[in-house]
Structure formats: C-alpha cells, structure tokens
C-alpha cells in the first residue's frame, strides 16, 4: 500500500470516529420545560393558504402584463403603460413576500 493510500485510510478512520459526548441527564427535560406555547395547526394552514394566494396573484399579474403589453406606449401619459408599471410593482412585491416565506431558516 502506498503512503498516500495509507494516509487516506487514516483520514477516513479519523472522520468515521465519533466523538464521545456527555449529554446531561436532564437535558431533554430542560428542553421540554423551555418549549414555547405551540400555535398549532392554524399557523401552518394560514401560511400555506397565503403562499397559494401569492402564487395565484403572481400568475394573474403576469397575465395582465401580457394583455397590457400591445396597448402600452412608453410614455407616462399612456394609461396602459402606467397600469403596467403598477402591475410590475405588485409583481415585485409578491415575489418579495414569497422569497421571504421561503427564506425563513429553520
């Protein structure tokens, strides 16, 4: 066996070796005492409903953009252009809300 292979084997053994940890006997009980009041199912349901509503809104807004596009003239005096700007802002807001929901770390 070459020196490199021997070293790689030693590294693997070192990685596989589990540290022996001393978990305090009262740890689980202490964690259980610290639990916050669980808000229950309501939050989860409201959250997924909110996510779904945001998704539907994003699709509708994107559709509106396509409908308005042929009528829009790049000028603030054009109503279709102004509405497109508002729709774009709303779409950005929906995307931000969705990103925040997904980005919440465990």
């Amino acid at each position, binding site marked *: 066996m070459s020196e490199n292979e021997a*070293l*790689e084997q*030693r*590294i*693997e*053994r*070192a*990685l*596989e*070796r*589990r*540290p*022996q*940890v*001393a*978990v*305090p006997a009262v*740890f*689980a*009980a*202490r*964690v*259980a*005492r*610290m*639990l*916050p009041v*669980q*808000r*229950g*199912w309501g*939050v*989860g349901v409201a*959250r997924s409903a909110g996510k779904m509503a945001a998704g539907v809104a994003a699709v509708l807004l994107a559709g509106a953009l396509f409908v308005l596009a042929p009528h829009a003239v790049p000028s603030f005096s054009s109503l279709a252009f102004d509405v497109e700007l508002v729709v774009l802002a709303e779409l950005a807001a929906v995307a931000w809300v969705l990103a925040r929901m997904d980005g919440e*770390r*465990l």
Partner: protein
Amino acid sequence: MRNNLTSPEAFEALVREHQGPVFRTLTRLTGAGAHVEDLAQDVFLRLYRALPYFRGDSTVGTYLYRIVVNVAQDEWKRRRKERLHMVSEPAFAAEDNDGGWMESFAGDALTEHARDPEQRMSDAQTQQAVESSLGELAETERAVLVLYHQEECSYEGIAAALEMPINTVRTHLHRGRKRLAELVRTRLAERPQADIRVSKMVAVGAVSGARR
C-alpha cells in the same frame, strides 16, 4: 405525527431519542465545549417551532440534521464577527488544538489493541490534524464530510438535509476529501519540525537549569 410531537412529554421523548447525534454532529462541526449544549438546545427549540410546517416528506432525523447544520453555520458567523472585533487566532483551531473531545474518544477497544503503538500514535496525530483541518474547509464541505463519514448518512439523506441535488453532494464530498487530505498532509509535514523545536527548547531549558 405532528399532533403527537407537540405535547411536552412526546417532545421530551423525541429529544432523548435524537440528542446523541445532535450533540455529536455539533461537536464535530463547531468544536467541543460548553457551547455545544446551548447550540443543541437551540436546535431542538427550532425543531419545535418548525413542527407545524413539518410535512413529513423527510424523516425527523433528516430535518434535525438540516437544523443542526444551520445552527452550526450561524455559530460560525457569530464567531467570525467576534474574531473581527477581538483576536486574530481562529476560534475553532484554538479549541481543537488543546485536544478537546479527542481525549474522550469512543474508540473501539478491540481495534485499538490490535494496532501497534507506532500506528496508534500516527492515528492520533492524523486525528488531531483532521480535527484542525476540518475547521479550514468551506462550511458545506465540512457538513457533507461529517454527515457522510461520521453520521453515516446516505447521499440522498445529505441531499435532503442540506437541500441540494445528489450530484452536488457528491461534488462537495469529493472536493472536501481532496482539500482535507491536502491540509492534513501539510499539517503532518509541519509536525516533526515542531516536535524537534519543542525537544530543543526542553533540552536548552534543562541545560540552563543545570548551570544555575
């Protein structure tokens, strides 16, 4: 499952069931010390808060590993900030160089006795080099290596825990092993010189002590 777990009694049982792997993984990812208990507490409280959103498409164990890695990464960020304000010495290396958890290995007694003293010595040196070098790897590579080798998670399990494709897990594992081997090799090459320096210092100390 969610209904059962939200009661304090059931959650306490769940903590008892998973506390070992959580402590072990945190120790490997962040170094040994009193902080591990606080981090483990944080892990389980995050799990409890996340239970209403737990859809059951992964096991509690996988979910826990995800939280452990997040908590370890937050700890690393906190240390980096602290280090910027305080010292130049890396916190992980400082904790590991003093031996840390290595003194209390759950070593397999049979295999330990089967090796000769020289082999055991070189294993111990490699172990120490591995622990110090782990701290120099990228966070994801370190997490993938620990989950794969120490916790014996499958590629699929790691992919679910770290929310990345299986091929990315493979790439991180390959890169992590390669980088770790380079770091360990460098450390082991430096070691004999450091040992010689220490023995010279001891000899000089003994001579000057004898003169006095």
